[in-house]
């Protein structure tokens, strides 16, 4: 089965976020009041083949721990859902991200 996973990487609670603070002051400068705090994170999308949804989640969690997030600063959550099968590449054209089964 083919799955799409989303890994949401966020800064740990208590770690100062210079990007978030800057976005917040930009919002205030534009006249948008009431945004108490802004924190910036990353969204990483992955497509993979796995025997089950649970197996896909396990695999993504593993790469999350090893590579995608730095445990000193960040935490992450994983969401997995079945994805449509990859389309076969069009003959004579190199497979682009859209064709090899990307988004």
């Amino acid at each position, binding site marked *: 089965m083919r799955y799409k996973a989303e890994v949401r990487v966020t800064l740990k609670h208590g*770690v*100062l976020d*210079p*990007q978030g603070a*800057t976005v917040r002051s930009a919002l205030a400068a534009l006249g948008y009041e009431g945004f108490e705090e802004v924190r910036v994170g990353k969204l990483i999308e992955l497509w993979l083949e796995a025997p089950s949804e649970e197996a896909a989640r396990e695999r993504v969690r593993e790469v999350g721990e090893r*590579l*995608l997030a*730095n445990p*000193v*600063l960040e935490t992450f959550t994983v969401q997995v859902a079945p994805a449509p099968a990859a389309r076969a590449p069009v003959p004579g054209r190199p497979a682009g991200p859209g064709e090899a089964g990307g988004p």
Partner: protein
Amino acid sequence: MKARFGIVVFPGTNCEMDTYHVLTRVLGQDAAYVWHQDRAPDPYDCLILPGGFSYGDYLRTGAIARFAPVMERVAEHAARGGLVLGICNGFQILCEAGLLPGAFQRNRSLRFVCGWTHVRVERADTPFTAACAPGQVLRIPVSHGEGNYYVDPETLARLEARGQVLFRYATPDGEITPESNPNGSVANIAGITNEQGNVLGIMPHPERAAEAVLGSEDGRLVFLSVIRYLSEGRAVRV
């Protein structure tokens, strides 16, 4: 006897030639480049991870480089007590590899900082600072976008208690102030060692301040310390 330095080169490293120049032409030592795919480099007394933007700094600085094959050798060398020196991006890679504690964030200003800083030598009894005087202030430039060093408060307390902080951003007189901190690093940290004291990460670039014509010779002291330590026969080869 000359010391033999291995300068590790990743795709995107850009300070390896400056480092090579200082070690060989300025200080008369032996040095060679070690390619990141090299699993079995020649024996070196000290491995240096120079600055740059390894793998484009994608994902996080140093996050991809730390899985390069050569890093296994760097870890082995460090485990045997061999000297490892990470400068700027090299410091970031050593943190990602777990050879040094902590991690890096964007500079607090969100700006890339490139300019002279002053760092105070906190200890002069280590392989990396033996040629300095305790409390000496070195004038060395920084050049980074993500030099904002972070460790949690408990780890910071341990680093301080064990004397692992070797360099701190300071005023020219050696005062530790918020204004002298170019990037927001906790406790003005500019350089730390591992617990054993044989792995150093330093954010400023000593190799860019090793000749009077460039405005400062202070960076030499870091390399001279290593050379002195090695000449005293305390070398551990890879």
